[in-house]
């Protein structure tokens, strides 16, 4: 801990030390500093020492310390120019100072100095990963680091820290209390002081501030991440783990206050922005801290149970999970069959759906998507909600969208650019990759969709068919590809398109549905078993997959034969689906290439599913 101490708590010192040792600002010391941190962070488990903004309330974190943040890029602001290096006016302390990784300069700046270097950086507005399930938060925070608090910012505290580290049990307990909820209301100590000074304006603006989370009811800090290099490599909706220097300087919030009070004509450059824009782009730092990025790690998944290194780099973990996969799959299948009222086929499809992933795009066609329509869901006893709660326990992030008329007519699904505030107002479809989206159609009642409703349904349809969302930029639309697993639960056939529809055939008819369901939930699933399922689903999704030449040939032959028997029965679309099913089936068994068996099995279960649909259609002739 001692070695990490210095760079976690005083990264800026390291920075300035470097700066001071280099008289010439252009000698590339910046690169060296970044290298230094990257190397440190790559060290085994080094990143686990860094406190995370996701788990630790902001006021427990020391300003200017190194923190990490697991987030989604919700919006990208305009690049900004800042003083990369500057000189102070005061000649006695006239040294070259570094403006990087800081929001506010120290001392008076000599604007006429010819040593001033202007540099550019980009700001991203980041929010915690939308729809992240409670179990993910719990697990990641249980392994969290105890930060040095801002209440004891002295170095001596370090020695206590070691003791604290030993009895980890007490410390997180202490922190969990303030964790819940009112983090947003009271930021750090500085903020509190300000509130007493100017209670009216501060609280007003705080309550007005919309943190722009994609999903309703989300909590957690959002962050303005300042990026210093390679910002072109980041894309909207990317999920990242950002390591950076926390900046909560109260001066940043003061800035916003002043604007309202004195809008001077004589300072035209500053009075130009609307108050709205001010509020969005420079919110109080106590609510939206600034994070100066040193290093960011793209997250291929947000499952904390998996090792953070990529699967390829971690062959030991991979081989151990692969060997277990078949058995875990069997257990999961039993469990899900139970949940799906004893329907094993539906459970099998559900597993395939849960590990599906858009792995490539060919011109406009997304490959690997597997949107599923689970029809025949019992409307009674909130079955769908219970069902969702169970899935929630298995996938890292998910969202439940009840497709009631009211929801469809009122919800904002598609993000829209607000030109007044100059930001992208988020919508429920701005989701991270591999988020599980549960559309509950059993709530749909009779009525009329209004314009918004029609647009929302169209957006959902586009999402399912093309895995893209057209963000509304008022004057034009912009297409953002996405990778979201959509499951539609409905009574009859869904009004939305889907890649495969399966009709639920309940094998058990429990007299009391309510009781049956609550029993499942209370079913003694030990957390270790749940964890096994969670790891299984995440790993299966990330495996590579290939089809050998012989298999290609045999699949072709099969297709030709099937068409020969009955050309109406199999179309190109069916082949598309069967190829996806075969892929997912292989992966679910931990096989990374298609085998004859898996292909036959894929054909078989698809046949079962289709015969069931036909059967169902015969029974229920008025079905469309």
């Amino acid at each position, binding site marked *: 801990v001692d070695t990490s101490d210095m760079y976690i708590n005083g990264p800026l010192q390291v920075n300035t030390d470097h700066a001071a040792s280099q008289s010439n600002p252009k000698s590339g010391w910046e690169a060296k500093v970044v290298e230094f941190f990257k190397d440190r962070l790559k060290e085994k488990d080094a990143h686990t020492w860094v406190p995370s903004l996701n788990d630790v309330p902001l006021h427990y974190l020391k300003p200017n310390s190194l923190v990490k943040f697991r987030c989604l890029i919700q919006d990208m602001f305009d690049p900004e120019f800042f003083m990369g290096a500057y000189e102070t006016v005061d000649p006695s302390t006239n040294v070259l100072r570094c403006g990087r990784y800081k929001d506010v300069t120290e001392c008076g700046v000599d604007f006429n100095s010819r040593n001033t270097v202007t540099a550019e950086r980009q700001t991203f507005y980041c929010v915690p990963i939308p729809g992240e399930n409670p179990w993910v938060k719990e697990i990641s925070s249980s392994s969290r680091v105890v930060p040095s608090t801002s209440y004891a910012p002295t170095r001596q505290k370090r020695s206590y820290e070691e003791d604290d580290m030993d009895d980890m049990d007490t410390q997180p307990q202490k922190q969990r209390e303030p964790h819940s909820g009112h983090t947003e209301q009271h930021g750090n100590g500085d903020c509190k002081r300000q509130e007493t000074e100017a209670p009216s304006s501060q609280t007003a603006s705080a309550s007005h501030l919309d943190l722009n989370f994609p999903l309703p009811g989300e909590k957690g800090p959002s962050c303005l991440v300042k990026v210093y290099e390679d910002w072109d490599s980041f894309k909207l909706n990317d999920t990242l783990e950002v390591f950076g220097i926390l900046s909560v300087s109260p001066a940043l919030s003061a*800035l916003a206050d002043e604007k309202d009070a004195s809008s001077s004509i004589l300072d035209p450059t500053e009075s130009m922005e609307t108050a709205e824009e001010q509020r969005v782009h420079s919110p109080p730092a106590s609510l939206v801290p600034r994070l100066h990025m040193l290093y960011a790690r793209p997250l291929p998944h947000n499952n904390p149970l998996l090792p953070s290194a990529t699967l390829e780099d971690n062959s030991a973990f991979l081989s151990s999970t692969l060997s277990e996969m078949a058995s875990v799959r069997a257990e999961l299948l039993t469990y899900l069959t139970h949940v799906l009222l004893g329907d094993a086929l539906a459970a099998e499809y559900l597993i395939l759906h849960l590990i599906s992933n858009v792995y490539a795009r060919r011109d406009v066609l997304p490959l690997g998507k597997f949107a599923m329509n689970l029809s025949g869901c019992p409307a009674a006893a909130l079955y769908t909600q219970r069902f969702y709660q169970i899935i929630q326990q298995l996938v890292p992030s998910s969202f439940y969208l009840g497709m009631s008329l009211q929801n469809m007519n009122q919800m904002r699904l598609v993000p829209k650019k607000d030109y007044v505030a100059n930001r992208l107002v988020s919508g429920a479809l701005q989701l991270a990759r591999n988020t599980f989206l549960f559309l509950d159609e059993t709530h749909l009642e009779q009525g009329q969709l209004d314009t918004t409703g029609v647009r929302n349904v169209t957006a959902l349809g586009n999402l399912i068919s093309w895995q893209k969302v057209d963000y509304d930029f008022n004057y034009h639309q912009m297409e953002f590809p996405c990778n979201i697993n959509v499951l539609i639960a409905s009574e009859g056939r869904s009004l939305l398109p889907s890649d495969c529809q399966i009709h639920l055939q309940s094998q058990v008819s429990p007299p009391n549905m309510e009781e049956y369901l609550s029993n499942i939930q209370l079913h003694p699933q030990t957390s270790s078993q749940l964890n096994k399922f969670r790891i299984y689903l995440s790993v299966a999704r990330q495996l590579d997959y290939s089809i050998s030449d012989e298999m290609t040939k045999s699949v072709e032959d099969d297709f030709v034969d099937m068409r*020969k028997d009955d050309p109406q029965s199999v179309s190109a679309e069916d082949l598309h689906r069967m190829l996806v099913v075969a*892929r997912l089936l292989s992966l679910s068994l931990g096989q990374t290439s298609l085998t004859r068996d898996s292909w036959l099995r894929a054909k078989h279960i698809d046949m079962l599913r289709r015969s069931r649909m036909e059967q169902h259609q015969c029974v229920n002739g008025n079905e469309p």
Partner: protein
Amino acid sequence: MSSPTSTPGRKRGRDGNPATREFCSTIPKMFLPNEVDMSSPLMYGTPSSRVEGTPRSSVRGTPARQRPDLGSVRKAPQVDLHSEPPSADGAVASEPNAGQRLVIWGTDVNVGTCKEKFQRFLQRFIDPTATEDENAGLDLNEPLYMQKLEEISVVGDPVLNVNCLQVQSFDAELYRQLICYPQEVIPTFDMAVNELFFERFPDSILEYQIQVRPYNALKTRNMRSLNPEDIDQLITISGMVIRTSQLIPEMQEAFFQCQVCAYSTRVEVDRGRIAEPAVCRHCNNTHSLALVHNRSAFSDKQMIKIQESPEDMPAGQTPHTTIVYAHNDLVDKVQPGDRINITGIYRAVPMRVSPIQSNVKSVYKTHIDAIHFRKTDEKRLHGLDEDAEQKLFTEDRVQTLKELAAKPDVYERLSSALAPSIYEHEDIKKGILLQLFGGTRKDFSQTGRGNFRAEVNILLCGDPGTSKSQLLQYVFNLVPRGQYTSGKGSSAVGLTAYVMKDPETRQLVLQTGALVLSDNGICCIDEFDKMSDSTRSVLHEVMEQQTLSIAKAGIICQLNARTAVLAAANPVESQWNPKKTTIENIQLPHTLLSRFDLIFLMLDPQDEAYDRRLAHHLVSLYYQSEEQIEEEFLDMAVLRDYIAYARTYINPRLSEEASQALIEAYVDMRKIGSGRGMVSAYPRQLESLIRLAEAHAKVRFSEKVETIDVEEAKRLHREALKQSATDPRTGFVDISILTTGMSATARKRKEEVAQALKKLIQAKGKTPAMKYQQLLDDLRGQSETAITKELFDEALRSLADEDYLTVTGKTVRLLA
């Protein structure tokens, strides 16, 4: 874009060649303003000069107008190089002329030389590349800008727009200075122009002195590539206006009056601040001066926000925005939604946390002071925009495209590059390819015909799940101005235009729909059959006249909708019924169908070899190596450029042989039908043929339509007809299925049945009323061919039309 680490250090304000920078650093810092040469351009246009009317021999009488677009004039003195060690800048110092030893502080601009050079440019520049239509009314062999000055003297609008590219071709050094030090060079230009102007037209009276507005700086930049090095330089960027502020009066000069002795003084605003005089110079009272707003000078200012054009953006990122300030007469020149090119000076201003605190937020605010606006979507005389072209194609690109065009199999290559994920359907892809290129636009308005449709319309119909939607999506993604709508979800107003109240201005505004938005592009309409009749009816006008007439809420107008329509329709019964005609299968009015140049059927062919190829295609689609994907990805970008290039530059005309071939083709098509007593081609089909042939010539980058183009057009047209207009009863291609909705044989059959029925009734003698069912049975018994109930009904109806009988319920009554 350079990353910040690699961004070279730059002193705020100046940058230039390394020599200059070095030279600057050797200047002693205590240069005082009184050393400044008073004839310097820096004094030009300052408030003092306006008030006292600086006497300058040639421009006497015409007031100079302040140029807030160039920023407040800084107190930057000129520097006499000879006070420096001569080694500092040998080249300049060795100039023999003493007057040229002065450069503006921090730059390498010498006012005299610069002025002279610019005057020489104005007097001598003749644009070698100018074309007649670009400069209507100007003599191309005379110096361009002298003619423009003459225009100014006549029109009296004292603005001279100067194309930077022309400056560059004339004098690269002058251009470099203009780009690097616009704030100093433009006033020098102003001065030069005014001297020249008033020399030539001493008597002309202008509102104020001529202002030079350079545009089209070569460093035309994408907003994304602006970086700190561009600060204080002249830049041209393109973008879309998203917001404009209200007019802001900006104080340029404050007027103070002493409360004690009424002595007045003026203080000019420097970088947004006024230095309030503390002591009255007249009566020496302290703090006795008060600001008099009425007598202060203000200038107009407007904040405009522009956003990157969607085309310029990398995928997966949000567009950047930049603030632009427009001054004086540039205010209110642009509206939100306009696409513009802006030439201006890029600025960065530090932000202060508060006036009291010494801490400064280490961020600069950036904006552009606009000097020149140019709307890019405003069509100039002949509909071409030189800026857009320059940006689109580099010479290398044009070269690659031309090489591609020279290949004999370019047509096949391009059509196979189209939607590679969709298997086969070669002819359909070829049809769509020709649609993407379009015919040549012709104007027959003199002869009363109006515009002649150049766009090719295509309808795809066929079984569900034959990747029709996917083709549409692909096309929509390929073309820059494409619109995608679904017939199910779109209304007539959504396609055309609607009037709504703007929430901000509370005025009625016309919001255009998909068809208008895809003017010059392609409108993809999926589920065409699901469209309501009223919605479909708006398409009639668009698909032939290419305009949209709107009369609603007091707005009556005709909008251009020169869009090609690519529609997809599903059969009414979920499966295509091969026993029925196209019309019967998709139930679309024939009036609409006849407006499609090509109607393709996308059916599921049932053939083993096809199945095998399809399966192979699909499997490899799901598992293909990276390189192959890469290869095809490249193709899409090339394809897009290829089409854009052909659409802008190639305007093929019919050659003599081609016209002959077309005539023959048309005559042949008419002949086919006339043998069986039906018309198999109409002039509309001839027009289609011409369009297709032209489009095919465009594919070859040929300015002439030749016989091979006509051959391909004929072939494709025949293929499409074969698929869609084959009469299922006879097996013959019958165009009347598409034009009248019924095949000629079917019509003939109907006639026959009606006659037989009439005979039957007449044979029955004088029975005024008959049972419907009995009549049907009788007719069936008599006829040798099967008579369906529908056929019988139709026969009854046609007899009823002749007023021979009436049908009421189950009885048929004869009319006397």
